[in-house]
């Protein structure tokens, strides 16, 4: 028995620690893969300390956790005091029930309910940037308070009510009685409430996810956006460091805790009391100093903030020794503004990312994102323009616009009198496949994504427009003018494909294809090149429809400014756009993302040509470059009418919830278990009743 229990316990601990061991192991990986070890190195630990965005996210998380825990502890402790002294039972119970709501409610419901509130308030006071640090702080305080109340309440209940009265009678002032008599009795509850609040806040993802806006990123949110593409091992390194420090902290607290219990047997001396007080006081002092320092550091200089919302990994950000275009802009523009205004001005770019045009649209439409520069694609720009969600640019503030090649200046989605967008990149959707597993005979068309032979190794887009696009191109249906029946035909095609699909992905495709977990997927051409550099077995082609004609999507992404941005911020946003068109930044970005650049400074640069080698002619195929207008008009997505959009949304929803790939096994198992449990309860109940009856009838006989 002893032995089996030990084996069992260790098995469970292996289960609990397996993923953590994996994570620590891969933090020492010398390549950037997170599922195969290439060699041992400390490189990711070094990388971590130069990864500004991650460190900033860490700092934000700590500030948020400390502030929300402090506020929640104050409000929660006061509340526990008030509630425990309440005489009216009904009021007391109501307050406690409401207090329990955030703990009992699923986090996602807490998150969306707060988001709805903030969106509403944001619309009332007509601001475009409600969501941000303030709203996340409010959300965190809200879900922290109940835990503080619950850990402090019992302390007040245990406390003898007459003690403070006695203290008052003996001449204490109310403050002294609180400080000397009540405080020492509740302090352990307060501290454990504070620690719990701090921990919950540090780890929270779901509630932050719904209440966060531009310009503030916490660590969990950053990890989430990374897991949508690939988690770089420096995140693993950070997790390993966090794990190690918590382990050390726990060991220390455990060690000191033990020595306390030994000492508890002896009377506590005045000196020990004093040191304890000093420890507590210095902890609080340290926290106060840290928060104070953070506030001061953010408040010293006038700061100009530019909130940029872009696709994931869509800018050269300084990782792997690349050029840091954001940092360079901050530095450059800070100098410009300082000179202009005559005093030090700090420029800060808050860079956050989205994974699909629809994500971006949802944020824009809710009106609370607070973004200054966004980078939607063609059809989305058309839609945003039609709905008045973006504003015309002042090209005088963007002198570098002259470097955009003429054929890209008035693209189909923005060819009115005023200019709403400056093209950032363009490209073509291609199919990427693994030459090791995929037969050359099978390639060429969209059919490859429907090929039974590769069932379970096919990836499909996880956004409605592109996924439906793949089916429509395959069938030769017009992606822009399809009738409702044709849309439904495409849905049928996608439903047919669903059992073959390994998963629906966006940027996760990189990892899945490079690690050879999946073999086939459609994605944007520039990304295909990136993947081919990382795994030489990968190849790609521009797909054809069933008639053998070139049929795929050509797209452009462009920088725009949302409608709500005021004229002052707009100027800064335009400066950002202008900077991204300047030679150094534009080339660095083009080298980083491998998409086609519309900028003549880039395409004519000899270093850039050399850097790309043969791939230069893949990206800048003269056939494509010279016919860009016809390609755009023939193969780009256009904005759909409102009813078609609604239809597309409904059909996508129908595809996502379609369960042809789902087996009934799970239902049968859970049904059987549920029946078993009910049967057991009924059996016990019947047994109890029978026993009770027997007992009673015996008693009845006896009394007779």
């Amino acid at each position, binding site marked *: 028995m002893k032995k089996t229990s030990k084996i069992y316990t260790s098995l469970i601990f292996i289960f609990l620690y397996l993923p953590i061991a994996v994570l620590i192991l891969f933090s020492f990986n010398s390549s950037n893969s997170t599922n195969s070890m290439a060699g041992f190195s400390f490189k990711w630990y070094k990388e971590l300390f130069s990864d500004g965005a991650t460190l900033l996210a860490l700092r934000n998380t700590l500030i948020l956790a400390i502030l929300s825990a402090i506020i929640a502890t104050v409000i929660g402790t006061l509340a526990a005091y008030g509630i425990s002294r309440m005489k009216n039972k009904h009021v007391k119970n109501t307050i406690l029930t409401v207090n329990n709501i955030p703990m009992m409610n699923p986090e996602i419901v807490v998150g969306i309910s707060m988001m709805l509130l903030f969106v509403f308030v944001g619309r009332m006071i007509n601001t475009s940037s409600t969501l941000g640090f303030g709203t996340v702080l409010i959300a965190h305080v809200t879900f922290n308070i109940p835990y503080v109340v619950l850990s402090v309440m019992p302390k007040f209940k245990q406390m003898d009510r007459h003690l403070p009265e006695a203290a008052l009678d003996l001449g204490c002032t109310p403050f002294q009685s609180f400080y000397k008599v009540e405080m020492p009795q509740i302090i352990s509850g307060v501290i454990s409430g504070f620690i719990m609040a701090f921990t919950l806040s540090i780890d929270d*993802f779901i509630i932050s996810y719904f209440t966060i806006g531009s310009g503030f990123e916490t660590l969990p949110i950053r990890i989430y956006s990374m897991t949508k593409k690939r988690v770089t091992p420096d995140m693993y390194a950070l997790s390993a460091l966090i794990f190690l420090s918590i382990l050390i902290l726990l060991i220390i607290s455990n060690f000191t805790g033990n020595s306390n219990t030994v000492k508890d047997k002896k009377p506590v001396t005045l000196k020990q009391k004093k040191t304890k007080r000093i420890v507590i006081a210095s902890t609080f002092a340290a926290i106060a100093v840290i928060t104070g320092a953070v506030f001061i550091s953010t408040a010293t200089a006038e700061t100009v903030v530019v909130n940029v919302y872009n696709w994931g990994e869509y800018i050269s950000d300084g990782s792997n020794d690349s050029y840091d275009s954001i940092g360079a802009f901050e530095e450059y523009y800070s100098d410009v503004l300082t000179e202009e205004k005559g005093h030090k001005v700090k420029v800060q770019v808050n860079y956050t990312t989205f994974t699909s045009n629809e994500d971006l649209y949802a944020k824009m439409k809710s009106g609370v994102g607070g973004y200054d520069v966004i980078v939607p694609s063609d059809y989305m720009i058309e839609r945003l323009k039609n709905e008045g969600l973006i504003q015309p640019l002042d090209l005088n503030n963007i002198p570098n616009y002259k470097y955009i090649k003429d054929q890209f200046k008035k693209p189909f989605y923005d060819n009115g009198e005023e200019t709403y967008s400056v093209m950032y990149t363009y490209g073509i959707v291609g199919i990427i496949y693994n030459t090791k597993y995929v037969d050359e005979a099978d390639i060429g068309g969209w059919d490859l994504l429907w090929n039974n032979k590769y069932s379970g190794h096919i990836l499909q887009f996880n956004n409605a427009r592109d996924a439906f696009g793949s089916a429509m191109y395959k069938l030769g249906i017009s992606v822009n003018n399809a009738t409702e029946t044709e849309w439904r035909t495409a849905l049928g095609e996608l439903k047919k494909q669903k059992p073959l699909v390994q998963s629906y992905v966006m940027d996760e495709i990189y990892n899945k294809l490079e690690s050879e977990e999946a073999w086939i997927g459609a994605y944007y051409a520039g990304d295909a090149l990136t993947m081919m550099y990382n795994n030489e077995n990968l190849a790609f082609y521009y797909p054809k429809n069933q008639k053998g004609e070139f049929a795929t999507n050509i797209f452009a992404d462009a920088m725009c400014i949302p409608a709500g941005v005021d004229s002052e911020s707009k100027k800064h946003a335009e400066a950002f756009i202008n900077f991204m068109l300047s030679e150094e930044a534009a080339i660095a970005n083009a080298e980083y993302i491998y998409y086609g650049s519309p900028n003549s400074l880039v395409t004519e640069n000899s270093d850039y040509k050399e850097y790309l080698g043969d791939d230069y002619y893949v990206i800048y195929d003269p056939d494509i470059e010279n016919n860009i207008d016809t390609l755009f008009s023939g193969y780009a997505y256009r904005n759909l009418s409102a009813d078609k959009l609604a239809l597309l949304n409904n059909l996508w929803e129908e595809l996502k919830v379609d369960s042809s790939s789902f087996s009934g096994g799970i239902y049968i198992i859970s049904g059987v278990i549920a029946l078993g449990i009910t049967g057991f309860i009924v059996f016990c109940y019947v047994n109890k009743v029978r026993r009770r009856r027997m007992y009673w009838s015996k008693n009845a006989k006896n009394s007779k």
Partner: protein
Amino acid sequence: MNKKSLIQKAAASPHIVWSVLFIIAPLIFVMYYAFTDKDGNFTFSNFTELFQASYLEIFMRSVCFAFLATVLCLIIAYPIAYFIAKAKPKTQKILIMLVMLPMWMNFLIRTYSWMALLEDTGIINTFLGIFGIGPIHMINTAGAVILGMVYNYLPYMIIPIHSVLSKVDNRLLEAAADLGSNPFTVITKVVFPLSVPGIISGITMVFVPSISTFYISQKLGGGNFDLIGDTIERQFQTAYNYNLGASMSFVLMLIIIVSMTIMNKYADDDGGVII
């Protein structure tokens, strides 16, 4: 004294104000969106839409997955909580610390590292490959999603059960043994009934997050096993259909409230007595 009672009355007021503003008001907004259409007119259509076969399936699937995950957690957690409670106080403290430690790591990154373990080309299959076994297809299956739930929420089941078990008076067990119970009946008739409150809170703490998760099903299910959480998230983050999302959240809250009331009724009325 007067001043004191005034302070007492005022002490809870920030909390009350906060609760009204940030707990009650948001829930009212959920209800408002759930019962209106895009133009703000009153309607039930969001709920009738949920009665489509596909949404019903999602609700059923979520309930089943969460149910299975909870049952599995209970089965796995109970013995370990019991073993820990039986250990020496010092070992107990260390073991419980080890149970809690993984929860301090970000759950996204832990789930992500399960992906690396379970993939066809992942660590487990590479390891099995050395012995010529496999590859066994694990990721993007229903089992992987349930495994993710069990992994993430297992500590929430172990800790409450352990805290109840560690407070069980040893003399009760001795008395039962003295009165002729064998070790097995001591567990079923004495230990288990006493631990019901811990089990109940463990079930709550596992079931609620399991039924509403969206990250685990996305990563370990590959988007093939949509749960309620995924569907709600999609309505708010990409589909921009707040009304449908709100009505789904409303139904989710109802499911949870109903299942918790049923369970608590057992716990309050009969609970230990039944068994």
